[in-house]
């Protein structure tokens, strides 16, 4: 168990800045996830912590001890790889014993430690198999057992589930989280799958363009995105065109409806008004409008029933695209493409951002 402090890490590849002044503090025992699209720098950061490449400047501390200039094999951080990296020429138990041997454990201790690690990942009966006899999910369990067998200070995981099929991915992520909690092991997890990040983490750190966009609890990230990028990347969102009028009111461009006033903001600027699809209501008779609701008449473009919920794609009469996610009621299920409906959402649910990919949050 260990805390991790990343201070001002910077790394560039030629003219490309891969990591720009990264500052992160991770509590001991936390499950910390780096989330972002490919090329955002999340894997670069993870590999810098592992020591597979070196930062241009900055400090990495584990339990207050600087490790950023240590060679990779002396850092004592465990790693689980995207492509498993299970040694194909060694049996399952030899794979798990590999790190213990390097750490010069006496052979009397290696056996019980291997058995324990395999028990944790539920692979006891596979100890003598060769990797090619295992499925992808089993190989990744070996990868995990191998990493935790040496009692690493920190466990690094580089998209460990991305090569598995959807069902197995969900099963294994629950198991990973359980093992991590039981062992209380500080974990840094890299993924591009936002659902995975939200489901597993104590803290989600959203990265884009080598910059941390926001680091917070999954709930915070979803409910209070710090900027337009986070709002767009995590979960689905509607972005409606808006602007700030001379009075300092944020209004929707097409309808002229007022969302809310924004104190001390530059007027006459275009903004983005976001609202989650689950906050959008769809009704047939237009009587849902309450005092604080914004309503728009429009038509259904596409309606898809996906089991638990109903996804409605529509266009308002003023030309805005709207997506809504609803509980499938029998009334709504009767709708078809082209039917006229009224879309509505509460002013409170709207979040305002500056325009641009990583536009700042205004209110």
């Amino acid at each position: 168990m260990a805390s991790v402090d990343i201070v001002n890490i910077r790394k560039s590849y030629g003219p490309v800045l891969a990591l720009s002044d990264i500052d992160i503090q991770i509590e001991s025992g936390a499950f910390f996830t780096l989330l972002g699209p490919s090329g955002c720098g999340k894997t670069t950061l993870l590999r810098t912590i592992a020591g597979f490449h070196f930062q241009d400047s900055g400090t990495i501390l584990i339990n207050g001890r600087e490790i950023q200039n240590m060679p990779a094999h002396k850092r004592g951080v465990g790693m689980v790889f995207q492509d498993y990296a299970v040694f194909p020429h060694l049996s399952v138990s030899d794979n798990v014993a590999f790190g213990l041997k390097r750490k010069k454990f006496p052979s009397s201790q290696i056996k019980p430690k291997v058995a324990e690690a395999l028990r944790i990942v539920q692979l006891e009966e596979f100890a003598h198999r060769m990797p090619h006899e295992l499925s992808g999910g089993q190989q990744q369990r070996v990868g995990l057992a191998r990493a935790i067998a040496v009692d690493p200070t920190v466990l690094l995981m580089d998209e460990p589930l991305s090569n598995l099929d959807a069902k197995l991915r969900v099963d294994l992520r629950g198991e990973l989280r359980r093992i991590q909690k039981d062992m209380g092991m500080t974990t840094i997890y890299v993924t591009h799958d936002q659902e995975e990040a939200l489901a597993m983490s104590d803290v989600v750190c959203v990265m884009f363009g080598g910059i941390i966009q926001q680091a917070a609890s999954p709930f915070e990230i979803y409910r209070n995105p710090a900027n337009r990028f986070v709002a767009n990347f995590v979960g689905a969102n509607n972005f409606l065109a808006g602007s700030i009028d001379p009075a300092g009111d944020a209004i929707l461009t097409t309808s002229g409806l007022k969302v809310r006033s924004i104190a001390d903001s530059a007027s006459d600027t275009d903004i983005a008004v976001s609202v989650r699809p689950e906050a959008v209501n769809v009704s047939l008779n237009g009587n849902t409008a309450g005092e604080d609701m914004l309503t728009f008449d429009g038509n259904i473009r596409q309606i898809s029933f996906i089991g638990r919920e109903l996804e409605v794609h529509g266009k308002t009469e003023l030309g805005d695209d709207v997506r809504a996610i609803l509980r499938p009621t029998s009334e709504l299920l009767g709708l078809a493409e082209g039917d006229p409906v009224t879309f509505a959402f509460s002013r409170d649910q709207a979040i305002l951002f500056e325009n641009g990919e990583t536009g700042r949050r205004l209110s």
Partner: protein
Amino acid sequence: MTITSSNPPLKPVSVFSPIRFDFWTVMTLLVVTVLVVLLILPIASVFLVSFIDEDTGAFTLANYVEVFTRNYYVKGLRNTLTVGLLGTLGACLIGVPLAFFTARFRIRGKALISTLAILVLVAPPFIGAYAWIMMLGANGFVTNFFKGLGINLPTIYGAHGIILVFTLKFFPFVFLMTKTALGSVNKSFEDAAENLGCNALQRFFYVTLPLVFPAVSTGAIICFVLSIADFGTPAILGRGFRTLSTIAYSAYTSELGGKPTMAVTVSLVMMAISILALFVQRRFLAKRRYASALTNRPVIHQLSGLRNLGAHTFCYAVVIIAMLPTFVVIYTSFLETNGPVFTGEYGLSSYRRVLLDAPEAIYNSFRFSLTAVAVIAIFSGLISYLIVRRENAVSGAIDVLMMVPYLVPGVVMAIGFVTTFRSGWYDLTGTGLIIVMILFIRRLPYGVRSTTTNLRQIKPSLEEAAINLGASPLRAFVSVTVPLILPGLIVGSLMSFITAINELSSTLILYNSKTVTMPVKIYISVLDGEFGLAAALSTILLVCSGLCVYAVFLLADDRESSFV
């Protein structure tokens, strides 16, 4: 936010980041040193000699002017290009159809055809030349047979003989490369051509051939480079028809003691032709890649009637004619001789003479080749790791340097070794060491190429996992990388061994009575007319090479492409 700060840094951030000096930095230095000493220095010294006036020691271009103006050299240059180009053309004319027939039609004994083609490839380079003399020379048995019928066959000596030998010797390169390429052309392209109205012949010339042309050209360029550098064939069959390599060799032997200026200049012109040819091919053809997802595999057709007979006849005729010299050599090695004359009876006297006259040649050949290959195996592992895993300017340069030994004719390399390793206070000429060194540097690329191909298929995360688990870089290499690249390493070493034990052009310049090798002894015996001795030694060489080919077949995934 749930992030909490933990212990503050105990030490200030160090301003000077330490130099990261790990195992691979040391290995890079070692490899660079070896390549500088054994590759760059000898070539540079040869280069330098060619620009120096033999008498005054001043810088001059006169040597090159002489090569390009004096009739003797210009004729040699023209001869070299003629036999090189026509030999390559011949190799393509039989290699491409052979590849097409075996890749697209049901031919019985396909594996046998490929195996024979590979055996042609690994047979000692000059066996062909003198076996053809035994068949078609002035006193050859085929010549005599036809003379008995009153027909005078044209002599084998001269340009056409050399072209014939080159064609039959080098076609397997074109054949194997084209065959591999044909096997990976998506059939949809051919279907599309047919759908758009092409008949079978049009489809081949407008679609299939252009698609595999990069591979054909790669095979052709190997033929061309090897034809130009080939010494044994024109030396044995030339009879006054001189090529640059024979001119360089005789210039070198006649200038012995003095500076080998003209030998070197001629050799460098030869090398320039190879490099230019390779450059042109790379620039215009090799970059064209038509790799596509192989969703629609090529179909193998069953021919019928005369066409089927024709295709089979062609395929078997090609490989059997190409193997004829080998058969002749093996056959004659079991004939009794009386001096240089075959008595017509069978016996083992040639082998007895090998044991009496040339045991040291066999011993030396194995000693030198095995030592060189042992070192090659170690360096192949290291170099391929540097090339594949350490992508930086130095490893990039090493990668490029690995092309050089293919392009430098043995004569050039050997003269470079003599000028480099013979100075006032040390003289390696005449030692076994210098032969081991030249075998090492000339055959290193075979080992590196095979190992590199193998290593590229191994995920780098495996080594990272080992390091992450606490293995030092050296440890990770030995315990994880080496076991995984072992097949590539062994196949590469076998290829290095086959080519090392058959080496003639460089050892002919570097050997002395104590370091004579089998190919050198064979060459000398042929010149002395001792065909029996030569045949017995050649058979021994053939058996060694054949055993190695068999081992490669057992070990390599893609057997045939291991040889080109």
